[in-house]
């Protein structure tokens, strides 16, 4: 039986998932800066502190490395911590615990322990938060064996991926694009999960594959609508899981369309799209490529504070549409 579905915002969907997990499992608890009484920098945790108390919705000091250490330790003892980093940029401070401890302990201790830790991070540009609060660092973590990295793009997936992450025995990093928090969409009531290793085709098409992630998925869908009016039928894939990458879904699509555009907000060089591009060149889709693989990524610069430059530093709808036109018309 399918659960009733209503419209929730992306932030509400996350809050609902947190509430459900905490109600179902005493081991689940939240940590983060200003997530208690204040309700979180982006109001994601909201009134959860009133429902579950300050022991399970813990405000942490402005000390990300310490917070991450506590979370890793708690996870090792069998707890299920969900740690919010106020901005994904601050993960740099917690790097040692995430990369050297959380990602490695299960391996180094011969599988005798696991680290069921979830780290949630608001990410990306578009809010005028400037160079130290606007980065897209997904690729850093997707480079580390032992971590899982996902980035939901709909309220439905924000809830389902978070529930799956909390239930997963290993550390999962969840990137949440800030511009998506207010986005509304259908969300089923009750418990469900979305797999941590599957991409999703958001729009089927036959002329060009757009493999996008994060906020770029909605931009790609907007571009696809424009292109449809011009007779170009774009297939938009939401990569969703960045480690492991679901190359099979992209490859099957490229076999169909013969053209691939990767779109990501992170810096273009050595980004997620670079990996997708290389993996497709190595895949069975290679012999089906009828144009060079194209990438649209962030500019090779810190995210500027000026709103005009901030926009110019990351791919926009028109950039995506123009790249698709080039690919589809054999001009790439």
């Amino acid at each position, binding site marked *: 039986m399918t659960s009733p579905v209503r419209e929730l915002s992306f932030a509400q969907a996350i809050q609902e998932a947190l509430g459900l997990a905490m109600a179902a499992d005493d081991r689940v608890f939240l940590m983060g800066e200003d997530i208690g009484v204040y309700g979180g920098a982006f109001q994601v945790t909201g009134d959860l502190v009133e429902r579950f108390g300050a022991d399970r919705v813990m405000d942490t000091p402005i000390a990300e490395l310490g917070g991450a250490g506590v979370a890793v330790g708690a996870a090792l003892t069998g707890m299920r911590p969900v740690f919010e980093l106020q901005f994904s940029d601050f993960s740099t401070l917690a790097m040692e615990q995430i990369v050297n401890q959380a990602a490695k302990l299960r391996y180094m201790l011969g599988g005798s322990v696991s680290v069921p830790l979830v780290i949630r991070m608001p990410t990306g540009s578009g809010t005028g938060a400037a160079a130290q609060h606007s980065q897209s660092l997904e690729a850093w973590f997707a480079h580390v064996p032992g971590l899982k990295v996902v980035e939901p793009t709909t309220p439905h997936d924000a809830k389902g991926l978070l529930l799956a992450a909390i239930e997963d025995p290993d550390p999962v990093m969840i990137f949440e694009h800030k511009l998506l928090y207010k986005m509304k969409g259908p969300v089923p009531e009750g418990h469900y999960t979305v797999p941590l290793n599957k991409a999703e085709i958001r729009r089927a098409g036959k002329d060009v594959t757009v493999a996008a992630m994060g906020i770029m998925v909605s931009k790609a869908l907007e571009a696809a609508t424009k292109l449809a009016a*011009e*007779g170009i039928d774009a297939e938009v894939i939401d990569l969703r899981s960045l480690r492991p990458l679901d190359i099979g879904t992209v490859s099957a699509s490229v076999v169909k369309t*013969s053209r691939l555009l990767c779109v990501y907000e992170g810096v273009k060089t050595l980004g997620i799209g670079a990996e997708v591009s290389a993996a497709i060149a190595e895949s069975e889709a*290679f*012999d*089906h*490529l*009828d*144009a060079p693989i194209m990438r649209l990524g962030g500019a090779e610069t810190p995210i500027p504070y000026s709103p005009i430059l901030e926009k110019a530093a990351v791919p926009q709808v028109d950039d995506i549409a123009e790249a698709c036109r080039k690919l589809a*018309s*054999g*001009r*790439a």
Partner: protein
Amino acid sequence: MPTEVILPRVDMDMESGKIGKWYIAEGGQVEKGQLLFEIETSKAAMEIEASASGVLRDVTGQQGDEVAVGTVIGRIFAKDEKYTPPAKAAHAAAAKPEVSAHTAKAAASPVAAPADHDAHGLRATPKARRLAREMGVALAGLQGTGPRGRIQAQDVSGSSKPSAAMVKDAAGINREWLVKGSGMPLVLIHGFGADLNSWRPLLGSLPPDVPVFAVDLPGHGKSPLTGVPNIDTMADAVAGAMAGEGVSSAHLVGHSLGGAVAAALSARLGAGARSLTLIAPAGLGPGINGAFVTGFLAASSEAALAPWMALLTANAEALGPALVKTTLRQRKDMGGAAGQAAVAAAVFPEGTQTFSVRKHIDAFAGPTKVIFGLEDQVIPPSHAKGLAGTAGVHLFAGVGHMPQLEARAAVGRLIAEQVAAGSRAGRNG
């Protein structure tokens, strides 16, 4: 980078040729312009000159071999150039001299210029390479429509689309479905002195899934000249050919003289004309390069014809010597240029265009585009001025009288826009 010796297309219907003899032996010294080898086609023998100076190496096509058009049959290394063994692609093509049906079709392009080669051999996408492999098509004979001449899938698959048998009846003009399919077709009308085959290089750039119908104007290609040649009788002839194929509505595309015919045809078809694309069209003003018309018609040798044909494009060498040969041969097959001379005398007497199709263009209600190259030396691009403001005028820098060849991809895109716009207009109306 050695210069490849490629079996050229020297005859309109030529799909393959037999190597008559080599004038220069493997390892021999050759000068540019010197006779290099001889081709025997089904109709005649033809001598081919060396396109570069140097040492002839890697001769793979031997006397008596039947070779597909476009096959690499040898390489010329410049004096100081170090010898390197043939690249894989060239090798594969040369190692399989036998002609398959696909190979022959693939090479059936009137401008037999091979795709550009880079230092690593042929430029082709992985998909084009796979399709060529599967279909037994030699990539070397294909015209690449991608950037820098890159061969794309459409260049391979388009080349193998079954072209309908020639359709011709006593009363009508010669016509052919260059691309079969269902839906609203494109009707292509060539320019003065050309024929329907002249559109083939553009086919790969046209929107996919759109059927393409082309005609030989009276006195051109395989259409005899009947009746009084003028724009109206030619438009009638094309309308007749369309009716003979059951085509009552179409997107019209015409080049030069064919542009004027297309405009006149749009008035005849009424709502059946869905869009009008005129490439370097005649009939917009009195001026035309009379010396070109006269010189082009009078030339009876390659030496005489080549300089005139060089005027057609901004880059004098864009058309290549093969088209000069083909044009002459075709003229011989037609029993001289009398038919075309009669057309020229009627529509371009004394270097003047005696007719105007402006009223037809201004009266046409559908999407209209006029395309000119700014380096056009046959019809002044300034003729595009003064049309109704609703007509789009597209001017290409560095392009001459043949935008459909010189700016192939862009013209293909403009035609695609016409097809899209004309289809929308059709739904609304």
